Each structure stands twice: as structure tokens, then as C-alpha cells.
């Protein structure tokens, strides 16, 4: 049953990953990418790493891919024009492909049999989340914090690069809006008949 589920999900991953690069419409590419992410989460569930699977869905599918889709939908780029001439790069693409394939074969042949046959998703702990937390906040604390700092720097950098002060933009002043009272907005007049104000 588990083997059947593995082959089914793996097939979906492969087909959708292939479709990402085959699809003509960039939005379709992103949608296929989302399916690939989602199915990979299914593979993680199969080996018992349910926490990682859910994180993959929450972070990549729920946030990153939404922004991808967002950007791709709004871009007005002529992708046919952009794709013209990509065939020139085929030797480089083949090289990268060979390197990737070699690495995967190497890892599966040389990799310890213990890792591939008796895989334990939560060593020394009851749940996957606990196992990850135990090493991440002890053994790899420095690396983990450094990764956080690097991300923060990247974020600050992106904001600094794109921030523009434009004095002509009109802004909402929320404090001014909420502190507005009825007496500031209007006054009541009591005009006598036939007199006007």
C-alpha cells in the first residue's frame, strides 16, 4: 500500500515538475509548480516526516508560491519573445543536467544503506517536530541563528533597494481620521422658515 502510494505520488511530482518547464503559459507553470510542491509534501508524509510536510505546504505553497503567482499574473512580459534564442544555451543545460544526475546516482549508490533502508523520521523523539527541535536548538543553534540573520539582512536589503520617498503620494493619516469628532465634521443650523441661513 505504501509502495503504491509512493509510486503514485512520485509520478505526480515528476509529471508536474516536467510540466513546469513544458507549459507555454507562465501562470500554468506556476500552478504545476504548486502541484509539485504539494505532492512532495505527500512524499514527506509517507516517510513519516509529517511536520516537514506541513511546513513545506505552509511556507512554500501557502506563502512563497502565492507571491510567485501574484507576480507572474501581473507581469506583462511577452514570454514568446523572451524564450526565443534559449536553445542557444543547450550545451550548458545538458552539462547542468549531467551534474545533477551524477550527484543523485552517486548519493544513492554510495549513501549508507542504513539511511536508505531504515529511515527514521524522528530519531530519539516521539514526533518529527520534537526531533527537529532537539537538534536545531542545541547542536545547530549557531547555524540556525545565522541563517535567520542572513534572511533578515536580505529582507532589509530588498526594502532599502526598493524604498522610494515620493512626496507627491497622498497618504491616509489614521490618527487624524480616528481622532475626528462629530463637532469637527459638521454643525447643526436651525433655519427659520422663509429666512434661509
Amino acid at each position, binding site marked *: 500500500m505504501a509502495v503504491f502510494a509512493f509510486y503514485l505520488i512520485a509520478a505526480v511530482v515528476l509529471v508536474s515538475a516536467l510540466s513546469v518547464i513544458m507549459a507555454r*503559459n507562465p*501562470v*500554468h507553470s506556476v*500552478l504545476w509548480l*504548486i502541484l509539485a510542491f504539494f505532492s512532495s509534501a505527500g512524499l514527506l508524509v509517507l516517510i513519516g516526516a*509529517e*511536520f516537514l510536510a*506541513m*511546513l513545506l*505546504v*505552509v511556507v512554500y*505553497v*501557502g*506563502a512563497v508560491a*502565492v*507571491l510567485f*503567482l*501574484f507576480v507572474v*499574473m*501581473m507581469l506583462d512580459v511577452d514570454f514568446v519573445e523572451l524564450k526565443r534564442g534559449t536553445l542557444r544555451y543547450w550545451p550548458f543545460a545538458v552539462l547542468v543536467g549531467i551534474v545533477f544526475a551524477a550527484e543523485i546516482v552517486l548519493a544513492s549508490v554510495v549513501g549508507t544503506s542504513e539511511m536508505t533502508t531504515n529511515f527514521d523520521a524522528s530519531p530519539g523523539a516521539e*514526533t*518529527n*517536530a520534537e526531533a527537529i527541535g532537539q537538534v536545531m536548538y542545541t547542536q545547530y543553534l549557531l547555524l540556525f541563528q545565522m541563517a535567520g540573520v542572513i534572511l533578515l539582512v536580505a529582507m532589509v536589503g530588498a526594502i532599502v533597494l526598493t524604498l522610494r520617498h515620493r512626496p507627491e503620494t497622498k497618504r*491616509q493619516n*489614521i490618527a487624524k481620521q480616528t481622532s475626528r469628532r462629530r463637532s469637527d465634521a459638521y454643525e447643526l443650523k436651525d433655519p427659520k422658515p422663509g429666512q434661509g441661513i
Partner: protein
Amino acid sequence: MSNYVESLGQLWGPLMVLGQIGLFTLVLLLSIAFLLLLDRKVWAGVMMRKGPNVVGPFGLMQSFADFGKFLLKEIVIPAGANKTVFLIAPILTCTLAFAAWAAIPVAPGTVSGTSWVISNLNVGVLYLFAISSLGVYGIIMGGWASNSKYPFLGALRSAAQMVSYEVSIGFVIVTVILLVGSMNLTDIVNAQEGGIWTWHAFSFQHFPLIVVMFPMFVIFFVSALAETNRPPFDLPEAESELVAGYQVEYGSTPYLLFMLGEYLNIVLMCALMTILFLGGWHGPFSLGEEFVRDHPFINAFSGLFWFMFKILILFILFALVKAIVPRYRYDQLMRLGWKIFLPTSLVAVLIVSGYVVYLGVQ
């Protein structure tokens, strides 16, 4: 013969799961039919109208009449639309809304510490969070595939809105996970056993934390309104600006699926609030250990009753908010999410984790 019995035994597990899925689906569909009517009746009541009252006694059959109408109408697909994506969008919305219910524990089990749930996941909370964060795809895909201006604008608004409010929902959930020390929904409910004062919204067992947890409950409620595109945050389908947002080009069964998914998500959010903050199936007073041990079935049924009752109360609150509160402006919505809810919930996570480390008795 024995072989036959054995294979039947093996089949029993999957069959039970399938049966439960069927039961959940049926009950959910039926309750959505009546909750939709309740929503419209509450709305009408606030406006001093009568609401739907023609089909059946008190209009009880209104939803079924609507259902029939939606099914029998012709499906119109706009000429410039991306057909496949256009049709996948509502199906996705509806499927995800149903899928989330697989992890919701609805009643206590007859053995103490267990619960009645289709799949008792260790990462139940994360699963629900993940599924609800996928809900945005139905809307974006629908808005994009319609190939029309209003749906597209609605979809963009909705994507930004849902991504923004997910952040604060995530942090609010983290505070509850920290208090319980588990992401299993059954454990979370069981941690609130005892009575109305031990529910996480009040947290008297972690005494000073009521100052943190009750505001968290309020933040979760408001964020849930935004996450399900309910008024006052229904900007993706603000009729005065965008006609009907991402749903403009939809009619007939695809529209029905969108509608169904939307209401299922609302009920799901009510269920999530019940589980995280209002003690799940626990009643407002403890039945006592002895009673629970001697009468497990009465306990299970009273649990089911309390769970549904709390969802109903929260749903009425949702309906009242729709009737009473005027719609937010888009910049106000973003400000509320990023500048008020996010910092508040972040500080709450700090306080609660400090409490758990230094004062907690775990």
C-alpha cells in the same frame, strides 16, 4: 472461510474511514444548508426584514430550492476564459474546505484521552493551517482564469488580504501550542478539561495569562473574518467597487461550489476557534471523572452537543458581524493586519513562551 473473515477484517479499517468520511460530508452539507438560511435570517432580523420565508415552513427549504436552481442552470464559461483553470478553481475551493474536516475532533472517544476524528494527526493544527492557507488558490485561479478586470482585481485583493492575516493567525495558534505543548488537536482539547474557566480563552489554570489569551481569541476571531472574506473584510467581493469580485463570471454549479466552500470555511474557522480557545467538546462545567468513566456514551454525546453548540454560537456571531459592522477600507484592513495584529500577537508569543519556561508546570 477463515481467509474470507480475515480479509474482511483488513477491509474493516478502510471501510470505517470511508463511512466516516461519508457521514461527515453528509452532515456538513445538511448543516451548511441550514446555516446558510440562519445567516440570511439573522441578517434579515437585524434589518427588521423577514428574510426567506416562502419555501417550506419558515423558509426552511430555501437552501434546497437554491441548490436545485444552481444545479439545473446552464454553466456559462466566458469566451476568453482559461477553461480548465476556470473550472478547477471552484472545485479546489470546495475540496480543500471538505479536506480540512478530516482532522477536526468532534467528540470525546469512549476511551479517556481519545476522540472521534477521521484522522488523528500529530500535526493537526499545522494541517488545518496549511489547508486554510491553500484556500487562497481557488480565489486567485478563479479571478485570473475569468479573464476579466473585476474578478482579477478581486483576486489580487483577496490574495494580499489572506496572506496578511494568515501571519497573525499563525502566531495566535503558536500561543495555544506553547500552552499545551502539543500540536495534536485532541491533546489541545483535553488540556482545557475542567470547566468554562479552564478554556484557553480564559486560561484560569495559567492565571495571569487571561490578559494575553482573551485578546488572542479576539484577534483570532477578527482574523478569521478576514481569512474567510466575510464582512467587514469582504473587499475581494465588495459589490459597490468590484461587482462581485472573483465570482463575477461564475454561475450555476461552479458558483455553488464557491459558495459551499466559503461557508464550509466559515464553519471550519468556528470549529477551530472552538477547539483552540473554547474547550472543544468540553461543556462549561465538568461532568466529573467518575461519571465520564461510568457513562462514556453519554459523555460522548454531550461532547458532540457542546461542540456543535459552540460552533453555532460562533456562527451566529459571524452573521451578526456581517449585519452590524460597515465594510473596512482596504488600507485600514492592511494596517489592522500588519501594524496592530502582527505586533500584538508577536508580543503575546513572547509572553506566553516566557510563562511556559519560567512559571509553567510542564
